[in-house]
């Protein structure tokens, strides 16, 4: 579904991503793990079209998307939930979720998309009239993912969905993401903490200093001394 091939990204003069390759298949949950500053967010932002690779290709459903503008990539069916949640503070919870049904025509009817978003995060329905600043960090993460779901995407890209959450909330978000996978969406999830990688992840990539140093099954990562050195000490 998503194929990132040998992508090089520069930010000004800094070479941030070095020949990064990764694949996400249909209905797969793929995790990109790495320390802070390793290149996870840069990889995801490049897929979303915020950054343009200097070399390499990115295809989604067989269509070249590198060089395309972000809204075009979104309309192709890629939902994005950024690390800071990106909630529109001036809009209510309901408006935040509805907006995606106006901007991506076609696909499932709007009512169905909204019902799906609230089905995964039922608590949001009770907060429908609230605005972003009145929500907790966990609720904002939920809203961010629910809003991406309302776009009716084939794939969701989640940047550190557990970052900054209390340990009590992490299982709630994790269970919701599991529900999303059961709805048939592919997921590419970036995470800095290996212990937050969901057990239902199909594949794991480890990135360090802009290079993918491991690609394989999550349980295999622990057998690689280089990977353990990078991610093993984190709790």
């Amino acid at each position, binding site marked *: 579904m998503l194929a990132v091939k040998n992508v090089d990204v520069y930010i000004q003069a800094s070479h941030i991503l070095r020949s990064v390759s990764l694949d996400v298949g249909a209905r797969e949950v793929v995790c990109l793990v790495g320390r802070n500053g390793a290149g996870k967010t840069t990889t995801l932002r490049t897929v*979303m079209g*915020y950054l343009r690779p200097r070399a390499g290709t990115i295809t989604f459903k067989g269509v070249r998307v590198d060089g395309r*503008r*972000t*809204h075009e990539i*979104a*309309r192709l069916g890629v939902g*994005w939930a*950024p690390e800071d949640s*990106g909630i*529109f*503070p*001036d*809009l209510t919870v309901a*408006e*935040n979720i*509805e*907006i*995606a049904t*106006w*901007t*991506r025509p076609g696909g499932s009817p709007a009512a169905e998309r909204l019902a799906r978003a609230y089905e995964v995060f039922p608590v949001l329905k009770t907060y429908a009239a609230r605005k972003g600043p009145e929500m907790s960090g966990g609720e904002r993460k939920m809203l961010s993912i629910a*809003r*991406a779901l309302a*776009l009716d995407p084939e794939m969701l890209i989640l940047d550190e969905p557990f970052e900054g959450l209390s340990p009590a909330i992490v299982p709630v978000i994790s269970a919701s993401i599991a529900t999303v996978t059961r709805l048939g969406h592919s997921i590419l999830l970036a995470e800095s903490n290996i212990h937050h990688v969901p057990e239902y992840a199909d594949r794991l990539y480890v990135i360090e200093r802009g290079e993918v140093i491991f690609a394989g099954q999550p349980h295999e990562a622990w057998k690689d001394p280089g990977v353990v050195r990078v991610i093993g000490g984190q709790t």
Partner: protein
Amino acid sequence: MSALVSILMGGVFHASILFLVAAGLQVVFGVQKVFNLACGSFYALGAYFGVSAVQWYVAAGGPPAFFIVPLIAAGALIGVTGVIVERGLLSFVYERDETFQLLLTFAVVLMMEDAIRLTWGTAPVSTSGLYLVYGQARLAGAAVPVYNLIVIAASLVIALGIGWLLTRTAFGRIIRATADNREMAEALGVDMRRVYAKVFTLGTALGTLGGALVIPATAAMSEMGVELIVEAFAVVVIGGLGSMRGAFVGALVVGILRAVAISVYPELEMLIIYLIVITVLVFRPRGLFGGAAA
């Protein structure tokens, strides 16, 4: 009492025009983060275009009582200039430093002034005789031109319309989302080029409409745009950059204070506005409604 009412109504009339221009400035800044110095030029363009439309209408034998129809139509239609300026010029500097945007809109001010002189000449032009075609109304003993009341009502309707657009329509919510977080809006499928073109055109149309509506009460002059930029800037500082409510309140403050100053001590006309601006900048740098939602 009648003198006070007369002064106040004159001030509110001016505030109504000022609100339209400042609202255009605010909506463009709120969404595109561009401080559009050319708002005054669009105001002047609307005024000249309005004069031409009314002159053509009268020459074609149109009844004077309906002159406001071609006037409003001309003012709104010339707003399409906004698409040309936005797509043809501004779209190339969005990613650059704000200084480029300021310089570019200032260049538009200079070019428009020359284009107006080239098209309409340097002598003031007006819709002579039509200002009082609707007669005058008596308010607390003061004679107030009915045309002024029509413009005040029109501005109120437009203010309510903008509020409705921003809070009750899908496009308005997309505008507010874009103003909040442009990157995130794009990730939800919002085509920023289209939003920017529409918002800038809306902002331009508000300015040109303001120019057209003021013209029965005054004459169009090529430098009228530059004069209005200063007042619009004062409105924005007082009300708060990017706030539509701020534009409304700021326009009232500037309009009424200016009218009072002209009546009491004309030399203070602009000085009193600058004093208010300085006071706001010192004690409330973000303006009365600074940081508030559009």
